[in-house]
């Protein structure tokens, strides 16, 4: 470059200067183009990563779901593809959820074993408490688990067995309860059949009542639910 300016011929020096000091518009365009290139390159990186992780993520989500279900219904109790054998419930006030609920149907050798579904208690101490429940074909509860809650740590969170220090766990008292024997689905303080921890009644009351409502709603319809083809909507069973 410095050689060019030393030459007596000024014509060659001018274009060189023009390249060294581009116009404002030129530099803006160059910046925009570079930003575009960076965007494309890094979006490609993200797309490749997403592609590479899609299968592992799907497998993880599925495994996690089955693991969760195993807490309310032992894996040995059924042998069908639980995640595929589903029916969709209409929005039922008794389940406390505003979206349609998917019911998984567990079977052993083709015979009905249990219905696995989610329900929600709207009246926890701090917001809704989400439940996963399994109702056996004979009308007894196989189990209830709290899957999401915001109850006070160390106080109301004993409804979550991972946080419960008691033995047996508080939530275990749902297992084996019969939906048909006219039991009172609330805490003993209110004249019900369920224990609670003094000072944290609201959480236990919310869970027991929600479990009771959901059981009462689904138990009468269980035979109809097992009879429906997989993937169908269970609208008719609740008319």
């Amino acid at each position: 470059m410095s050689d060019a300016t030393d030459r007596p011929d000024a014509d060659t020096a001018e274009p060189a200067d023009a390249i060294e000091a581009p116009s404002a518009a030129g530099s803006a365009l160059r910046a925009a183009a570079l930003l575009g290139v960076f965007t494309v390159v890094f979006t490609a990186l993200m797309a490749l990563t997403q592609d590479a992780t899609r299968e592992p993520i799907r497998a993880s989500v599925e495994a996690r779901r089955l693991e969760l279900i195993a807490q309310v219904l032992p894996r040995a109790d059924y042998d069908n593809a639980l995640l595929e054998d589903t029916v969709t419930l209409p929005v039922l006030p008794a389940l406390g959820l505003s979206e349609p609920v998917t019911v998984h149907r567990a079977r052993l050798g083709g015979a009905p074993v249990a219905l696995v579904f989610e329900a929600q208690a709207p009246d926890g101490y701090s917001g809704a408490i989400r439940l996963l429940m399994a109702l056996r074909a004979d009308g007894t509860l196989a189990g209830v688990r709290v899957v999401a809650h915001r109850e006070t740590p160390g106080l109301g969170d004993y409804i979550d067995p991972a946080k419960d220090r008691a033995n047996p766990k508080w939530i275990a008292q749902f297992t084996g309860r019969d939906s048909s024997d006219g039991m009172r689905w609330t805490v003993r303080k209110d004249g019900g059949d369920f224990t609670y921890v003094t000072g944290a009644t609201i959480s236990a009351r919310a869970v027991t009542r929600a479990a009771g409502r959901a059981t009462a709603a689904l138990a009468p319809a269980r035979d109809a639910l097992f009879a429906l083809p997989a993937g169908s909507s269970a609208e008719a069973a609740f008319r």
Partner: protein
Amino acid sequence: MNADDRALYGDITRKGLWENNTALVQLLGLCPLLAVSTSFVNAVSLSLATVLVMALSSGAVAALRTLIPHEIRIPVFILIIAALVTCLDLAFNAWLHELYLVLGIFIPLIVTNCIVLARVEAFAAKNSPLAAAWDGAAMGVGLLWVLALLGSVRELVGAGTLFGGIDMVIPGAHALQVFGEHYRGLLIALLPPGAFIFLGLLVAARNAWVARAQARAMHPPAAAVSA
């Protein structure tokens, strides 16, 4: 590695771990500090993710620094950081799913952790890729040890355990019940105020340490003077 390099890397390490410590001196990136330091495992997991993001983004920015026009450097930095965090978020979801569910929104929020952009802008944009990656890692490890300490103390005081949730990272491993089965826990340690209280104590301890070291440097011990 020659003496100059060794001095440079030593300097970077010392600044990252102690003199310019993210959590204790700069007090940057307190959002994850507050929310995730309820247990040792959570704190260390999120810190490790942050270390990785800081090292990679600093290294990447330093490698590309001659290509990035000065006027658009901030959007490009954010683009690089966000892309790396997204990849990390997907990787957590795929291979550390349990932990991903616990850390949740705090992994994508690493993008907004100002310390990441701060190191990229202040150091990586002017240095070689290796030094920049080292700087990012050192700053991240500075955050990590403080978070690990904070997480351990909060978990110990709040729940009486240590390494709770370790089975999410190492299947089959168990938490330590330090104070036995019957310890009820001091709830405030696990709630957000607990994070502020224990961080305040850590900052105070560091300040006291530094003040004492300075006082000693200025006024050598009496014995040395009389001798």
